[in-house]
């Protein structure tokens, strides 16, 4: 068993007097797909920022494997209209890539021939694919996706999830995905962690068969890329953060 790529112990993060995360333990291993779910304001993005090194830690520690390469796909990228940016140039940020490599990356992302297009002129789905393609050019050990499928419709996010599965199979990189959808997660997730300021519960998603119920819930065309996650919290919330979803009774 090798050391985890990222190991977090007893992490507490505060913004002024507000506590964003409290005593969070978390780890992700090589090649693992982990989905973090939680309502808005539950500290999901803060956890990611702590891994990237963008927030001060009030308590605890974040340990990263030496030489860890992270590919990051942000929730959204607000491109200032004064900044001209072709797809081709964006793929070469921050490290320039050879034209052939860029072309190949676009082909693999399913958006061939878009290299000369302005980033601002892309559709939501194309934009997400380009963000992912750029992150993959960094040849990451760990791919971090912050609500990367949030703007996509169901077939769109199904296609996106399928692509992530392929990426893991091809490159063996670990995937850390954040989602605000509490119940529907990517079925290939090895683990699901429910966060609400602290870790509420963790487990594996239920891979639901192609039953009529499932179809009614997800619609056609998701090709089994989505699954349900059943929460099993055994506590009530101390700091007034009511869960937005149904909680199973404590056992």
């Amino acid at each position, binding site marked *: 068993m090798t050391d985890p790529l990222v190991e977090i112990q007893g992490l507490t993060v505060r913004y002024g007097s507000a506590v964003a995360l409290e005593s969070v333990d978390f780890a992700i291993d090589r090649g693992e797909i982990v989905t973090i779910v939680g309502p808005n304001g539950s500290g999901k993005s803060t956890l*990611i920022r702590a891994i990237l090194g*963008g927030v001060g830690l009030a308590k605890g520690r974040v340990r990263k494997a030496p030489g860890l390469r992270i590919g990051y796909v942000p929730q959204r*990228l607000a491109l200032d209209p004064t*900044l*001209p*940016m072709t797809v081709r*140039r964006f793929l070469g*940020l*921050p490290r320039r890539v050879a034209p052939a490599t860029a072309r190949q990356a676009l082909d693999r992302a399913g958006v061939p021939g878009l290299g000369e297009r302005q980033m601002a002129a892309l559709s939501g789905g194309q934009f997400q694919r380009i963000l992912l393609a750029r992150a993959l050019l960094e040849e990451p050990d760990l791919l971090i996706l912050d609500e990367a499928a949030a703007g996509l419709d169901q077939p769109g996010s199904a296609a996106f999830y399928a692509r992530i599965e392929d990426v893991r199979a091809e490159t063996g990189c670990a995937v850390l995905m954040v989602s605000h959808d509490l119940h529907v997660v990517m079925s290939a997730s090895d683990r699901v962690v429910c966060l609400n300021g602290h870790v509420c519960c963790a487990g594996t998603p239920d891979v639901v068969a192609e039953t009529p119920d499932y179809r009614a819930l997800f619609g056609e065309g998701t090709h089994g890329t989505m699954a349900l996650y059943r929460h099993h919290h055994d506590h009530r919330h101390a700091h007034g953060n009511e869960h937005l979803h149904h909680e199973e009774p404590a056992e």
Partner: protein
Amino acid sequence: MLDDFMTRAALAGIGTALAAAPLGCFVVWRRMAYFGDATAHAAILGVALSLAFSLPVFAGALVVALVMATLVALMSGRGYAMDTLLGVLAHSALAFGLVAVSFLQTVRIDVMAYLFGDILSVSRGDLGVIWGGAAIVVALVAWRWSALLTATLNPDLARAAGIDPKREELVLTLALALVVAVAIKVVGVLLITAMLIIPAAAVRPFSRTPEAMGLSATVLAMAASFGGLRLSYQFDTPTGPTIVCVVAICFGISSVAAGLTRHGRARS
């Protein structure tokens, strides 16, 4: 060749344009126009202090501009909206600077020369300072270009790639203070921001990549400095403001042309 004051003035203008235009692109992309103003206006206080203590004006302006830039960076995110904070600091710095200059009764100085520049009085020594400073700024921006661009796009994206966005911000701050100190003799503290922003804004509609925008802004700024100098000689107008007028006219033409192309494309 350097004996001719017009040659020296032309070289000073081109040197300033070379330093200001590429940096100006970042000022535009990161919406730091007011930040540039605050830094530039603070420089007049630096001028007053250097004259009072018989120090080189360049050094005084540079130090005070740096202090101001750091102060802004430290105070940001502490309860005031950024534009309010910068508005307060920019104009207070200017006011304090002007008051400080008025105390200097022993030295008779022409405040106008520092407010609007006095490019025709550039000496060989000034030229050395301008080109030295410009070389440092260009080298700094070229060296950090990709990292600066990534940090400008998204700080978390930069962090994931191992770039510290705070450090890149510091690089920009340092470069900005240098440009202010370099440009003070050429366009003066009140018009430095114009030389940063207007060339970049003028070439934006015709640029496809950040690099193209940086290069064409530089070419435009250099041409405008040269043209402005010629026009001010011909019509006997103040040189700094004339240079800014030329870039501003270029911006106007560019905006109209961009509007027409868009309109044409929409109709066809």
